[in-house]
């Protein structure tokens, strides 16, 4: 499957939705407004797809995970109490669906490495050299993440990129909190060993 085409961040509806806007949509959707839920999907689906892809490492699986995530969100929206942000709630559902998908996939298929999957940076800088350097470092970081075993990758993605607490990660992946912490430690160590020279470069470019 060929990688999707690149677009500018401005073309992506809702890649970084406003929390107030989302809160309003959530309230209306909980009151039964279907069009408000559709707007919630429009505002968040690219972000959800990105997480799903990072967790599964596969475009087709990511699409299935997105479908399942929004169905579960639609059916369970009345249970969303608003203690966490809607996006955090959505990330948790996505993580749970991805864990199910990975379990279903089993050990037969090997992850494909798609280094050139189209990614849009919401905060592009205007220095082409710096951007090229950062892009190269990020490609290596994405590659190293992709090469991690899925169970290690899931924990580091959810904790270090999406900032989910250990407790939530453990709950959604169906493991104990201590197991989640052990996996996180192993994942970080593997990444550090793999990327030590590049990490410095990527971090400098942030």
């Amino acid at each position, binding site marked *: 499957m060929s990688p999707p085409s690149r677009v500018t961040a401005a073309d992506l509806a809702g890649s970084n939705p406003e929390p107030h806007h989302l809160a309003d949509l959530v309230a209306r959707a909980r009151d039964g407004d279907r069009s408000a839920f559709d707007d919630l999907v429009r505002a968040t689906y690219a972000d959800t*797809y990105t997480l799903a892809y990072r967790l599964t490492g596969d475009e087709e699986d990511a699409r299935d995970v997105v479908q399942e995530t929004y169905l579960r969100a*639609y059916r369970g929206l009345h249970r969303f109490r608003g203690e966490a942000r809607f996006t955090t709630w959505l990330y948790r559902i996505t993580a749970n669906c991805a864990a199910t998908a990975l379990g279903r996939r089993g050990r037969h298929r090997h992850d494909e490495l798609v280094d050139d999957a189209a990614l849009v940076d919401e905060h592009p800088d205007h220095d082409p050299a710096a951007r090229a350097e950062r892009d190269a470092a990020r490609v290596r970081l994405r590659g190293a993440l992709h090469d991690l075993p899925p169970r290690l990758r899931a924990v580091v993605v959810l904790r270090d990129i999406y900032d989910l607490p250990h407790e939530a990660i453990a709950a959604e992946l169906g493991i104990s909190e201590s197991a989640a912490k052990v996996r996180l430690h192993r994942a970080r160590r593997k990444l550090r060993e793999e990327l030590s020279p590049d990490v*410095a470069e990527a971090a400098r470019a942030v």
Partner: protein
Amino acid sequence: MRCDHVAPHLAGLADGSSALDLRERRHVEHCLRCQAEIVQYRRLLRALRSLRSEVLVPAPGLLGEVLANIEAAGEERAVRGLVSGRRAAYLGGLAAATAAGAAGALVLATRHRRPA
């Protein structure tokens, strides 16, 4: 104290989620290798956090598929609501009829017991 003892805590130290005891702290203060690892972890964590601003572009069609599935789920829910509403009405009617029958029987029984 050896580096191996401290190594599991270094990433946590970099993100502020773990702390070292006095002996471990003294080791790290004098160990260039451990200090270098902390720096590498700090850079790794910053680089990972920077990925949060990237959004993968889904293939066209995904949004339409998701919205169509939600619409189907909405229809399903509406039909279930109608069916359960009718079932509730039917059960309510049945209960009312049973109560009316029981009340009638009670009235008849009471009349039979009255002395002529």
